[in-house]
């Protein structure tokens, strides 16, 4: 077990493309860190550099206090779980798990003992003689985990290990991997593009965009205090609604509506005062928007909105709305999917909401949950 420390790590490809720019990250001993970001943000590249499968252009990388930049993968004392699992189809489950021990020339009895232990932990005992082709997705995933565990490495590296599973199994394996990590207490770096995995699994989450680290924090702090509009939009599902408005006195105005801000909002963000009379980006999460005709929404101020469509999920309604404000793009390419062509806002209503598609409603918003960002830099105020 060991801590993993990345200092000023850069990765530049031949065509001068900066895949990773000045990445500083320190993962504590036994910590479960999630690297998350949209496709092409450099998260897999970062992981592959830690594994030694990709050269580091500049910077220093230490695992357990040892500088590993110039070490081949096998000497770094890490194990990796691949997105495709990379199980050898011609080997049985036993042979797959025992492969690294066989390469190391460990005697057969020792291999048998160790693999049996792991198979027991992962509930693979009855499958040891099967070939990967005869296993289900979840079982293959567990074999891949077993192959990583067998070596008792200093750190686990996982590259989107759940993305090949169906939705239901993914939820199950999410919990399994989390509890396994707690049980083993091995430092783990886990790459995903799925913000739900990021929020539910990790001790801390590092959000990357365009090869630049945006924020590293606990899931709760990422959700509550994103450092910029990108993190705000990326974390949470559906994404945070971001709009442009003008701060006039203590009122946010946009088009035909205004939202009065309480003093507490200015106390918490002293910088906000300086935006008086200027444009500002404000954000509100879908779960902090309410149907004003329901009890839960009565206590908040309201703004006019037009319902464009409703997704009834049983436990909640995802309501697509159009409000009189200019939407701000957080820079997350995946967030666009949350909005249709006609709507610019999303709200989560309770299932007994009676709003209908096409109707004009009053939308209640919890102004204590507003986020503010600079319109130029998109940094949190």
């Amino acid at each position, binding site marked *: 077990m060991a801590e993993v420390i990345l200092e000023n790590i850069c990765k530049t490809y031949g065509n001068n493309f900066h895949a990773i720019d000045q990445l500083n990250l320190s993962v504590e001993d036994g910590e479960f860190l999630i690297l998350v970001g949209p496709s092409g943000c450099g998260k897999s590249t970062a992981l592959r550099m830690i*594994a*030694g*499968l990709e050269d580091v252009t500049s910077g220093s990388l230490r695992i357990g206090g040892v500088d590993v930049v110039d070490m*081949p*993968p*096998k000497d770094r004392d*890490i*194990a*990796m779980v*691949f997105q*495709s699992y*990379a199980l*050898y*189809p*011609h*080997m049985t489950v036993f042979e797959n798990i025992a*492969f*690294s021990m066989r*390469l*190391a020339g460990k005697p057969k009895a020792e291999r048998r003992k160790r693999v049996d232990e792991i198979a027991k932990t992962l509930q693979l005992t009855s499958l040891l003689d099967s070939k990967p082709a005869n296993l289900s997705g979840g079982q293959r995933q567990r074999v891949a985990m077993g*192959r990583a565990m067998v*070596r008792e490495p200093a750190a686990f590296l996982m590259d989107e290990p759940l993305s090949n599973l169906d939705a239901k199994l993914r939820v199950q394996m999410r919990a399994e991997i989390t509890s396994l990590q707690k049980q083993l207490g091995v430092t783990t770096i886990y790459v995903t593009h799925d913000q739900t995995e990021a929020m539910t699994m990790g001790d801390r989450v590092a959000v990357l965009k365009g090869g630049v680290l945006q924020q590293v924090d606990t899931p709760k702090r990422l959700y509550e205090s994103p450092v910029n509009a990108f993190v705000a939009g990326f974390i949470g599902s559906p994404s945070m609604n971001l709009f442009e408005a003008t701060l006039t006195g203590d009122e946010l105005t946009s088009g035909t509506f205004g939202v009065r801000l309480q003093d507490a909002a200015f106390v918490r963000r002293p910088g906000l005062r300086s935006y008086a009379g200027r444009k500002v980006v404000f954000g509100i999460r879908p779960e902090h928007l309410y149907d004003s005709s329901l009890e839960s929404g009565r206590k908040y101020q309201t703004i006019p909105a037009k319902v464009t469509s409703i997704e009834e999920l049983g436990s909640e309604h995802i309501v697509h709305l159009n409000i009189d404000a200019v939407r701000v793009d957080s820079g997350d390419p995946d967030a666009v999917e949350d909005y249709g062509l006609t709507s610019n806002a999303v709200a989560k209503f309770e299932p007994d909401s009676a709003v209908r598609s096409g109707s004009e409603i009053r939308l209640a918003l919890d102004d204590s949950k507003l986020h503010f960002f600079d319109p130029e830099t998109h940094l949190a105020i």
Partner: protein
Amino acid sequence: MTPQKRSHHRLKRAVAPYLYLSPSLIIISLLMLLPMVTVIGYSFQNSAVLRRDPSFAGLKHYQAIFADPVFWASLWHTLYFTCMSVVFHMTIGMIFALMLNSDRINPTLRNILRVLYILPWLFTAVIIAVIWRLLLEPNGVVNSILMQLGIIGSKVEWFSSPETALHAVTFANIWAGYPLFMVSLLAGLQGIPKDFYEAADIDGAKAYQKLIFITIPQLMPIIISISLLDFIWTMQVFPLIWITTGGGPIYSTEVLSTYTYKLAFSSYNLSQAAASAVIILLISLGLTLFYIRYQKAR
């Protein structure tokens, strides 16, 4: 639909696939099955083809062949020629495929090598035979190079001495045939997921361990299929040997195909030639059945 119409429709549906197959079935029967059956018939007749009313000969011709030491020599030469060819086709094909697949070699050089390595495949058997006859002539390039290097002391008559002739034709055939393996294995190599090698790198595999534990097992289906096919084809090679040595000197390169040809067109013993052809057919058939069973098992 009346019951009559319905049964008519069913009949049409049942017959249709056979109608579509019939042209190819007819052509194959006329061009392959019929001659094969005729040859099998000849092998049991006295003076087949030569006489109008050949008499039944029983197993006489087969007995004659099995008693002929030249037949046994031909069988042995065929086996040697075939086994050596297949083994070296595979080995050379594998080495070249690994080279062409390596990203440590400059891509431009790889493209040039790819063309060079595939060249032997572009020549017909006759051209290959002529090339090697010229190269291996006593006064040819090979002898002169080997003598300059001091490997041989005097000129070797590669195709005309009984000690070297069989090796020489085998060598020419190896040269002519490896590109099939190379191309097939290269395609197979490109289909092996990169993840396998990366996972092995992390697990600490050395280059030879990756070859043994990943590359070769992954290529096994291709290796077995192509080897079996190559075995079947090489067993029947005729023009290369006929043009280079004609089976000689003193039967030293006589293989089953040249042996059969000589029986038929030098000795005009068509019945015995037919019996010899049937023996080749049986050996090929056995290998083919083996190949089909292997393909089905996969």
